[in-house]
């Protein structure tokens, strides 16, 4: 069951931090390439896990979608739903399985509205999951997708105009 951390109540800060970290990480690509992605993964994974575990209760799915889901890890949902809440959310906004836990998607929806950069991405349709990526580094996988080592399906944009909660 997810515990969450107080930092998650500042999704606007977290998305900026993500964007900054992504920029730094990508700019160091020549370095990661030189070491090799597999070796880089071994070096980086413990740090990535620690960071994501402390802040997000990361489940190490290897296909991180945090900025699509209100900086809230959807793999903490007992059904691991990546496209929104199931029909069982309790009237008090808690999970149908864990009565004491707030529904991951209630949190995600609230937080996404405080995220000017990526908040609207909570509307994207997340593609069918690739379970082979479990326990791999999502950061390195980003590079593996860029250089074509991995071919993953991309999220699909929702074709609607009314996005009032994220404007």
């Amino acid at each position, binding site marked *: 069951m997810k515990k969450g951390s107080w930092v998650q109540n500042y999704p606007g800060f977290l998305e900026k931090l993500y964007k900054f970290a992504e920029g730094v990480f990508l700019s160091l690509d020549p370095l990661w390439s030189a070491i090799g992605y597999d070796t880089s993964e071994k070096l980086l994974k413990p740090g990535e896990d620690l960071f994501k575990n402390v802040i997000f209760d990361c489940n190490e799915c290897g296909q991180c979608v945090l900025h699509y889901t209100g900086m809230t890890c959807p793999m903490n949902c007992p059904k691991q739903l990546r496209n929104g809440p199931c029909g069982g959310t*309790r009237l008090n906004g808690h999970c149908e399985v864990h009565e004491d836990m707030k529904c991951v998607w209630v949190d995600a929806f609230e937080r996404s509205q405080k995220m000017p950069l990526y908040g609207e991405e909570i509307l994207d*349709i997340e593609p069918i999951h690739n379970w082979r990526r479990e326990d791999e580094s999502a950061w390195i996988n980003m590079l593996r997708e860029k250089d074509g080592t991995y071919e993953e399906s991309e999220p699909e944009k929702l074709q609607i105009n009314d996005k009032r909660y994220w404007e």
Partner: protein
Amino acid sequence: MAANNKHEVIAGSNLENVLRAGHFAVTGELGPPTGADKSVIEEKAEHLKGIVDAVNITDNQTAVARMSSISVGSMLVDLGLEPVIQMTVRDRNRLAIQADLFGAWALGARNLLCLTGDHMTFGNHPEAKGVYDMDSIQFLQVMRRMGEEGTAESGDELEGAPSFFLGAAANPFAPPYEYRPYRLAKKVQAGAKFIQTQCIYNIPRFKEYMQRAGDLGLLDDVYVLAGVTPLKSSGMAWYMANNVPGLDVPKDVVGRMKAAVSDIPKEDKKARSKAQREEGIQICVETIEQMKEIPGVSGVHIMAIEWEPAVSVIAEKAGLLPRPTV
């Protein structure tokens, strides 16, 4: 969403034809037995034949192991009823789901309801491993592409691709309320052509939801069947209001069920049960009457849980009979 034109024939099922012809559709539900007794199916089917346009067959409903929805669907086809096969992503991965649905199509099923499914912990095998290989939206995508492009999820071409009339569930009554219409939009874009909703007791909330669905432009692309369940007793009403996650039974509905027996002495259990059942049916009929007036509602889905004989009474009282032949 041009790809989702609701006027294009997909599977040619009776349900699809009724909806396309603009009739107010009626679907029912049949819960398979918790074992291999075929006579249960035959008896339940008897109560629904000629009363509804199609019958949903639940898939291990409330996570209790039951006769499989596809096998029951096949029996219904033989009995002259049209099934809506319910399939959850809880018990099968993408291989099993596709394999079973190839078979379902071959056995004559044409309607498919793509669901997430109740969590294992609610059922009789709480120790079971949940699968959740994909979610209901991705499931819809897989099945839509299968119908349109003739391919498996892997992209491989199929030896005969099923092209189901695809449906999905929607629950307007659970938080986060403002996000729910967007989830509906995802389902419609993913491939849902019809929606069957959670049981409706909170009508103002449902109207709001439909209004938002209309604002988002979804109602041109999908048929919405309003879910209704007749209450059998005030005990059931109270239980549903307090113990079933995802259900919203307002106090006044529970109150009406209680009031129905306020004049009948406690000892007269038979009379109390009869009065409560009648009130439950009356509330259900009134709800259906209101559903007919809501823009975008194309029919009703009557879920008389373990009470199939009630469906014909409700359909008759709500002026839904006879069912059209299309």
